[in-house]
């Protein structure tokens, strides 16, 4: 007890020994319009993760909806703390060897209310940090779509911590950090085609392959248990994506306006493309298709949002939606992997297309700080983009493989067959999502518990085995 109290005190002292000088603002270069815009954009991007939770949650079977929500929510908890403690420093701190940030900003030491002109000259450095945090959160959450309905929760938590630190933070540094080698190369990624979507999509694919198929995959149908929940989630994603892409202008200006317009346009084009292809292919245009296509369009425009014209964004969205449909409907069935909620089909494929499309459609007439693409006489940019894509894929795939295999040495990744049968909600979290009239009566307060435990401790024991 004594001991515990002391260690608390120690922790507190360490916490507050961080220099706080220059934390408060002298207000010099901060622009209130830009700052308000980026703060609220960060809020919109945060909302995307609960939105994603619903988007994914509606698509799983009833017995796994809570475990699916839990994926996104636990990431909101973990990555928010990781980022503040060291993640932001790794990603955006002073460069080492063009590969990783320094540890100077541990615990946000030195990240204060004044702008950091290296990244955004008119908003507080803290606001830039917060905005970037939201990207780190959603990226990890996207992966959870691939491993839904079968991964053990404790293994998932470990995976998130390692993946964010060893994959996301370096990648963000390479592409966006001052000194990052992909940034130096001239790779364009306005809001995260490589960093967010390719990395999560390909990592998801590998994770799905390592975990293996869900029990019954291929023989039993595994259909969405609540399509309106998925549609609601897609609506929140579309909304939040304005923060994601327009906010990436890091100021409330014309460029943010362009990114807003290309984002909306590509989402619309993606939805229409999916509907049309589905209509031709399966004779039925579905609302799940409309929502999926919109997300595919949003993914595809992400790296290009601030570099291309609105008309180009129509093409990017149409192709993005069609490619994702193909990946999900044909490729997945052909290859037989069980990417449960299509993190790869939507984000891996759409992100790759978007990164390449940026190399095709980018034009300095939209963003003088960008570059011209293939169609504007600069085929080299497409090559640069392709390199960045390749590097991202290879790195994500390898690192995810190593992380998962490493975790597997310590604890089991996969739920048992019985746990899958009963559902992860009950077996990992001891909860049920919905409870009707008689559902309530089917349960007894814990006073009855003892006798049950006495009779079958094994079963109850299982539950702690997360």
């Amino acid at each position, binding site marked *: 007890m004594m001991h515990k109290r002391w260690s608390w005190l120690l922790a507190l002292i360490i916490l507050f020994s961080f220099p706080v000088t220059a934390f408060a603002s002298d207000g010099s270069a901060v622009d209130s319009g830009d700052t308000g815009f980026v703060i609220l954009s960060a809020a919109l991007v945060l909302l995307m993760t609960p939105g994603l939770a619903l988007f994914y949650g509606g698509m799983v079977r009833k017995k796994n909806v809570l475990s699916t929500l839990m994926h996104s929510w636990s990431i909101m908890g973990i990555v928010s703390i990781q980022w503040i403690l060291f993640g932001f420093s790794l990603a955006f701190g002073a460069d080492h060897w063009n590969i990783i940030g320094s540890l100077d900003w541990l615990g946000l030491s030195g990240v204060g209310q004044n702008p950091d002109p290296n990244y955004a000259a008119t908003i507080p450095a803290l606001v830039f940090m917060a905005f970037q945090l939201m990207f780190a959160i959603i990226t990890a959450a996207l992966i959870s779509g691939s491993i839904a309905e079968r991964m053990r929760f404790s293994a998932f938590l470990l995976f998130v911590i390692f993946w964010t630190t060893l994959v996301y933070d370096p990648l963000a540094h390479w592409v966006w950090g001052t000194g990052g080698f992909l940034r130096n190369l001239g790779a364009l990624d306005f809001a995260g085609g490589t960093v967010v979507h390719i990395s999560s999509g390909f990592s998801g694919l590998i994770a799905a392959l390592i975990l293996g198929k869900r029990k019954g995959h291929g023989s039993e149908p595994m*259909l969405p248990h609540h399509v309106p929940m998925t549609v609601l989630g897609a609506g929140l994603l579309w909304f939040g994506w304005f923060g994601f892409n327009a906010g990436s202008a890091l100021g409330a200006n014309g460029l943010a306006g362009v990114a807003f317009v290309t984002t909306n346009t590509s989402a619309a084009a993606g939805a229409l493309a999916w509907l049309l292809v589905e209509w031709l292919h*399966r004779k*039925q245009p*579905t609302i*799940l*298709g409309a929502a999926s296509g919109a997300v595919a369009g949003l993914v595809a425009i992400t790296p290009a949002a601030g570099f291309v014209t609105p008309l180009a964004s129509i093409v990017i969205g149409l192709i993005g939606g069609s490619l994702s449909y193909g990946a*999900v*409907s044909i490729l997945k069935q052909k290859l037989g992997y069980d990417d449960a909620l299509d993190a790869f*089909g939507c984000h891996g494929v759409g992100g790759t297309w978007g990164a390449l499309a940026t190399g095709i459609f980018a034009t300095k007439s939209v963003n003088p700080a960008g570059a011209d693409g293939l169609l504007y006489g600069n085929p080299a940019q497409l090559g640069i983009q392709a390199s960045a894509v390749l590097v991202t894929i290879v790195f994500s795939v390898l690192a995810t493989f190593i992380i998962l295999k490493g975790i597997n040495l310590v604890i089991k990744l996969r739920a048992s067959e019985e746990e899958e049968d009963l559902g992860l909600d009950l077996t990992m979290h001891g909860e049920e999502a919905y409870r009707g009239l008689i559902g309530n009566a089917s349960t007894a307060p814990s006073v009855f518990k003892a006798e049950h435990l006495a009779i079958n401790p094994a079963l109850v024991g299982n539950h702690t085995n997360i």
Partner: protein
Amino acid sequence: MKKIEATIRPGKLDEVKEALNKSGINGLTVMQVIGHGKQKGHTQVYRGQEYSVYLLPKVKIEVVVRDELVEVVTGIIADAARTGQIGDGKIFVSTVEDVVRIRTGERGETAL
């Protein structure tokens, strides 16, 4: 007493209930079921994959009546539930030996 169990189309519940009401049959219990008979299912599409549904939503009605009412009641139900298309459903009749009205404890036919 006889128990009449009718599995019908969900859209027909209203008409069946009205028809029973008009004939003075008031006690009935209804539940939601899915079923398969001669009727064929639909095709559904999820993310470009097709599925066929072979268990279709139906409604099951249970009415317990005095023996002499069996013919009348099955007739009323069948008439009201009929569309003439495959999938109209079936009626099963079986014997009930005793009834208790919980509220009063009455037994037998008077408890119906």
